[in-house]
């Protein structure tokens, strides 16, 4: 039986270390407004423990995760999929020292807490919607 070697990774373009260049980086929206940080990544990898077939393509990043993903990344465990707040990888427009999105923060689920606090608390205090003087 000849042992088939794994294909060499495609080295075209930039190679990134997920731990170093993606996790815990700041995410900003199309206008440069901070949205959140990358609390975890969602990959399309198979369920851990199942054998991997020969020739399976390398896993791809599906989404940046935020919200409860931070708690489970630090303390372990896995929240139900419905609890994860996802920013689909297709929304990512640029990778530098920060990750920039091609969409506005207001259109994202990831910013609902910010919107709620703005609309129900901070925006209601007098002066909350004016520039500081």
């Amino acid at each position, binding site marked *: 039986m000849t042992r088939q070697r794994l294909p060499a990774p495609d080295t075209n373009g930039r190679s990134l270390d997920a731990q170093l260049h993606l*996790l*815990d*980086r*700041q*995410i900003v929206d199309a206008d440069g*407004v*901070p*949205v*959140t*940080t990358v*609390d975890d990544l969602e990959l399309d990898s198979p369920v851990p423990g199942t054998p991997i077939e020969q020739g399976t393509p390398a896993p791809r990043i599906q989404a940046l995760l*935020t919200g409860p993903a*931070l708690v489970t*990344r*630090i303390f372990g465990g896995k929240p139900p999929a419905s609890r994860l707040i996802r920013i689909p990888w297709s929304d990512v427009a640029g990778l530098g*020292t*920060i990750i920039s999105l091609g969409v506005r*923060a207001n259109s994202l689920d990831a910013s609902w*807490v*910010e*919107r709620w*606090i*703005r609309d129900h*608390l*901070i*925006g209601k*205090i007098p*002066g*909350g*919607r*004016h*520039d*500081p*003087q």
Partner: protein
Amino acid sequence: MKRLLGVALGILTAIGGFVDIGDLVANAVVGSRFGLSLVWVVAVGVLGICLFANMSGRVAAVSNRATFEVIRERLGARAGLANLGASFFINLMTVIAEIGGICLALQLASSVSYLLWVPVATAAVWLVIWRVRFSIMENVAGLLGLSLIVFAVALFLLQPDWGSLAGQALAPHVPESETPATYWFYAVALFGAAMTPYEVFFFSSGAVEEGWTAKDLVLSRINVFVGFPLGGFLSVAIAGTAAVVLLPAGIEVSSLSEVVLPVVAGGGKIALAFALVGIVAATFGAALETTLSSGYTLAQFFGWSWGKFRRPAQAARFHLAMIICLLAGPSLLATGVDPILLTEYSVVFSAIALPLTYLPILIVANDQQYMGKHVNPRAVNILATIYLVIILAASLSAIPLMIMTGAGS
């Protein structure tokens, strides 16, 4: 001409903004017990804060990243969260101590109990954070804080024996009435007061608030390397007045009235008025800085939108976090906890948390992806590494010394 004015203004605010309640109390206590024999610690601490404040300002100006974003990126989520917990706790303690300082100074001026001033001072701090532009806030507090120069003036008016003062400062030794452990405990406390982490959080976030770019680096370097040492000189003057008046008389510093006592002895009522204005301005400025730092650290760790350059509604969680801090912290003062004691503890805890803050700054200041050609020069790295060793030593010895000496009593 305008540029020159900008430089002068920056230096003046750096001087006036350097001293806070921690410096005031720690220096007065140390002066009254050890004379000037711990001045070298202030010098070491001031050089350290210059080094790292300048570095964090450079990181912020070049890469647009404030210190706590950098801390999370480099330490990861787990260690970053532990760091956030420690920094936030110390920061909140400092907020309470600064607001207590404002109220104690107002009590001295008005004879109205400081507890009645707490809601007034807290509301004033919040209003400034809510409505006043960053640059105005910085400049007004800094310039009024310059009144603290009256401590240096008072020192001259007291006509001390300069020779013996210089002797204490240049050939330091442990006074006979004190043990080596208390000497080193207060050395750590003074070091913590000079290098408090909130100063770098605030300095780097301020650089982002004011939109610094690589072009502003020269200006920032002048502010730091001229302004901070002159601020440190004010700290030494405070210790000096205490050494001349309180040490021989055996008066122990347990409240603000002892801190200003030497000023009255040297310059009378007018000097006292200046000292009180200076203390209120310095503690008010520091209350603003620490409250903002609480918001900055939280927002930068979790990636929220932050900054006073935005409308409050556009940085909603940032402002809500600060409102909660201002509601929670000062209500602790209402329990009657002694603000001076709280200050003494907060500077020691600051010393413990120092390495967590300064190591990530040093790492990122060497990262070309962030810094391009503005990475640290070799000499700065060598000096910063030496400082990390000192910082680590101070941090590790703080708790054992605190236990051994019963917190310096």
